[in-house]
């Protein structure tokens, strides 16, 4: 199977994010990492290739810094990369991102496209579903397990509150992958070395612009949310903090 994996670079979970001066976006000067569900999407693709053969291609759309996620994916075992490079890809809505990715791969014939189920930064939870619609393919979301069965796939999809559902899915298809389905691998030293010689196709905004169209959403303002609950803050040396907590547990919460 020939599988495309969409990988987004997002601010590191612990990164102290700051607003830009106009309060419309975050400042770029933080550390970045691979969007966590996308790491699981890549892992699943690599395992499918190990089982069924084929090719794993990774793609990202982002500024210069985003190339790093492709390098990491190649080091983990992806065969080649497609890099949609440009600051124009920052802040796009999901439909525009999906159209850009679809345009970038229109001459390829993938059997499967994986995305993460949601980006940790924008949290739109839409790009994979929209990509399927642009490609005219069926899709399913929040997938935990994939097995090849005949001409198609048998999928395990996560539902709310501990429920699951299996589905039969024809190919080609787009799947959005949930975290936790597999254990993630690390890049090996050999893998990192080999990655340097793997092909990376570079495309710019102008190569996909005609297909993207205009953003349907506008972020008017980004701000620190108001706190709703009256929270009491405790700070200080650990022993003192511990004493205060126990005091609260005993005298206010009455749970001791």
């Amino acid at each position, binding site marked *: 199977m020939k599988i495309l994996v969409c990988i987004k670079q997002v601010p590191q979970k612990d990164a102290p994010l700051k607003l830009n001066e106009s309060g419309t976006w*975050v400042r770029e000067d933080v550390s970045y990492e691979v969007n966590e569900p996308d790491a699981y999407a890549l892992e699943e693709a690599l395992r499918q290739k190990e089982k069924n053969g084929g090719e794993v291609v990774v793609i990202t759309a982002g500024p210069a810094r985003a190339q790093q996620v492709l390098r990491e994916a190649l080091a983990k075992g992806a065969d080649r990369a497609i890099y949609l490079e440009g600051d124009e890809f920052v802040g796009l809505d999901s439909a525009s991102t999906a159209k850009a990715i679809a345009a970038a791969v229109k001459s390829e014939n993938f059997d499967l496209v994986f995305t993460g189920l949601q980006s940790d930064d924008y949290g739109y939870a839409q790009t994979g579903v929209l990509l399927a619609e642009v490609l005219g393919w069926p899709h399913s979301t929040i997938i935990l397990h994939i097995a090849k069965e005949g001409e198609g796939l048998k999928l395990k999809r996560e539902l709310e509150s501990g429920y699951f559902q299996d589905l039969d899915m024809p190919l080609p298809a787009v799947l959005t992958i949930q975290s936790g389905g597999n254990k993630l691998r690390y890049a090996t030293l050999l893998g990192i070395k080999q990655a340097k010689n793997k092909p990376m196709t570079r495309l710019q905004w102008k190569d996909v612009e005609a297909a993207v169209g205009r953003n349907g959403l506008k972020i008017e303002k980004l701000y620190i949310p108001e706190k709703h609950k009256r929270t009491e803050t405790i700070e200080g040396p650990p022993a003192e903090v511990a004493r205060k907590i126990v005091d609260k547990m005993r005298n206010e919460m009455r749970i001791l």
Partner: protein
Amino acid sequence: MSTVLVITEQRDGKLNRVSFETIVAAQKIAADKGWMVQAVVIGGDIASAAAEVAAKKLEKVYQVTSSKLAQYTADGYAAALKSFLAQKPATLVLFPHTYQVRDFAPKLALSLERPLISDVIGYKSESGKLVFTRQMFQGKFAADVSFTGEPPYFVTVQAGSFRGDQAENGASAAPIETVNAALESSAVRVKPHDIYKEAKQAVDLTQAEIIVSVGRGIKEQKNLEMASKLAEALGGELAASRPICDAGWLPIERQIGSSGQTVSPKLYLALGISGAIQHLVGMKGSRSVIAINKDPEAPIFDVADIAVVGNLLEIVPALTEELKKAKAEA
């Protein structure tokens, strides 16, 4: 008059409660703008669900049915609602932000070349323009988002953002109109099987009075021991956020959140948990919440009674000691 349309969600005739929260959002927007509210119930055997929805103050309820909609598929729902919207246009279409809606609503919106604002927690009407608020960057920021093009506008509403018990009832039941969804048999490309639960769970956290819950801030698997000692000192159960269970450090039956358990203990002690919405929905009902987090801006503090700002790796052992001392004194 413009219409706000609520697409409710049911499974086996049972309505998802976020449907009612979404009706509340629609009623509020409609009151502000002078619009009317209609609702859709979609599926196979849905007469009683439609009657339940019709008790709310709505201009009309549509039952969109077909035997091909008996079991949910993204293809079936998107095609049926697309043809419905062609017959019954709406200005604003609201959905509850459920797993099912995440699966089909973006497809429906794009099939009409319209954008969708997902997972909103509120709205504002700013000089006539509707602006929706949603969380971004894992809840560290809120964004006010507007639509740039023409209606219909599609919006999904986060669970817990509006209070379902505030849904206004109508003076009399709203009229119900049945719309048969003509679906071609080739429209549905996926074959769904019955839903199921994994084998019976050994621990039932819903009964626990005290829960010590561990997040990624615990850093290493070996540090779990300090959390379990604290749980022991408190006579509580150990639980976790998703990444801890994903890594296999604790079994999935101890996961709290939208895809795990929903708990409401007397005390929920969150150690190194950031407070993503998918975690919060599983523990918001706790009577008291103490959160320990090194980041004073962590969203978990928004639902905490006591915010302990600091390094959990130092505070947790100190707290366990202090509890042992307190016990020895008693």
